[in-house]
């Protein structure tokens, strides 16, 4: 489990370009020459306008997609295929609708060869930890959106990932539930010490959660700038927004992000009017 920090970064993307080529032969460049380093135990938020390749970055780190150019390293090793030390929380619900909460959470250990009784026991602990004790026998469609996200978190964290990738995980939740979930995520993360890459389009969320905010330019995406968030931990996401320092950081990053958002907006507008 423990890798000394001296062994280098947890995640390292070097000169990464990702192109998607359609069967018709037209290429779409999602990422261009992207460089990103995430240290062990660091909470790194990635913000950028819609369609700038934020989600693609996560797909590359997880090994779901290979890069077209450049290298992706996780704990020093080049990524080839899906690795088991990575956890991924998706934007949409990706828990299995035909499995109960217990089976959904226990499935990771079961896939990895743990016996059913042992997996269920661990799963019960995680279900309790995300505040769903008593809901073990429920099916996902019987739960609220926030509860389903808790299941997804437990399902991912039960495997003890050293790298946690999150793709706008709370974007579908209402504002109150979202603040609750963000606080719980910080608590759970503090206990695991995993490196997090948290993709979001919400700058407030990014600053409230992260140690570092990376701004990606309008597509093809590349790192425009990075900002260190020197706000004290433990944080209360709902209240940290009132700190003067928070507002200061927000203004600083927003000045940077605004240009990219405008570029992206102009582009979609042109695409719509030209059609």
């Amino acid at each position, binding site marked *: 489990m423990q890798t000394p920090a001296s062994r280098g970064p947890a995640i390292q993307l070097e000169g990464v370009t990702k192109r998607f080529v359609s069967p018709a032969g037209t290429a779409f460049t999602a990422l261009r020459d992207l460089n990103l380093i995430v240290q062990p135990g660091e909470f790194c938020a990635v913000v950028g306008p819609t369609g700038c390749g934020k989600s693609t970055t996560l797909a590359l780190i997880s090994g*779901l997609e290979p890069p077209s150019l450049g290298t992706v390293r996780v704990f020093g090793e080049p990524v080839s295929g899906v690795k088991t030390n990575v956890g*991924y929380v*998706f934007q949409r619900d990706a828990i299995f609708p*035909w499995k109960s909460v217990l089976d959904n959470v226990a*499935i990771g250990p079961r896939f990895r060869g743990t016996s059913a009784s042992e997996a269920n026991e661990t799963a019960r602990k995680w279900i309790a930890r995300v505040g769903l004790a008593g809901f073990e026998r429920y099916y996902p*469609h*019987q739960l609220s959106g926030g509860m389903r996200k808790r299941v997804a978190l437990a399902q991912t964290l039960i*495997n003890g990932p050293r790298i946690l990738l999150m793709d706008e995980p709370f974007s579908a939740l209402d504002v109150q539930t979202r603040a609750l979930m963000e606080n719980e995520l910080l608590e759970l993360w503090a206990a695991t010490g995993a490196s997090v890459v948290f993709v979001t389009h919400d700058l407030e969320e990014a600053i409230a959660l992260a140690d570092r905010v990376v701004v990606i330019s309008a597509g093809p995406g590349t790192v425009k700038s990075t900002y260190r968030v020197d706000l004290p931990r433990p944080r209360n996401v709902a209240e940290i927004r009132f700190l003067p320092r928070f507002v200061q950081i927000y203004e600083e990053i927003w000045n940077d992000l605004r240009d990219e958002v405008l570029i992206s907006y102009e582009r979609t507008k042109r695409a719509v009017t030209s059609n």
Partner: protein
Amino acid sequence: MLSQATEASARVSAPIDDKDVLRAQARARRRLLVIFLRIALAVVIVGLWEAGTRINCYGPDSGTCVIDKFFFGQPSGVADQLVRWVQKGTAQGPLWEQIVVTLEETVIGFAIGVILGVIFGVALGRNRLLSDVAGPYIKAMNAMPRIVLGSIFAIAFGLEMPSKIALAVVLVFFVVFFNAFQGVREVDRDLLANARILGASPGQLNRHIILPSALSWITASLHTSFGFALVGAIVGEYLGARKGVGLMIATAQGTFNANGVYAAMLILAVIAILAEALVTRLEDRLIRWRPNAITEVII
């Protein structure tokens, strides 16, 4: 389920609101009205039919009536025919024997068709090369009016059960096949990606993700395909058989017995409705996790 139960109990324990009580009463009254109107509709239609065959008749020639019962039958005649079949049996033997034969052909044909459809659907859904190669042939075979195969089967397999079962299998297979194929293809990409990251092997992906996901499509197709199995058995019997409800229809037609055709149709309708209820129960058991039904794929 449980959340609904607690909601309901909360509603009961809440102070009774007069408007809510009134609304509930109105709903109950409406339900009774619907049932009453349904029965009334049947009575009116059957009554008009019966009356039509008795009004305006001169002498023994039924052709002078508003509705000629010789060609179009008569509800009371249909009832008589059913009673006669139950009491005295049909031309081919006792009534229950005909029903059992038809049911046996239907159920065996249905089972074989479903199993083959699922196997081929999943195999082609998972293997792109296989589906690219076999795709056009399957589409062509599906476009063909397969009912004419009944004639081939009657020649090849004779007048006993196998020819009817074969026709039922052919009709059922394509419905189930296309749904299973579509079900496998429509598996949510995020679910697949999630399972892979959680550590699933290819075999585990099949068992835990792809099959359960396709199952809701497959079960949705069972409603239609049981109907098709029945059609296969009946048409097969109609084309040539020694026993079965389809033969009863053919015999009734041969003797200009319109009431006999209607009576056999009534028997088939009852079988179909009972089968539909059974399939629905099977579906509920197989996919308890699903909030509401998927509408079936249209082919």
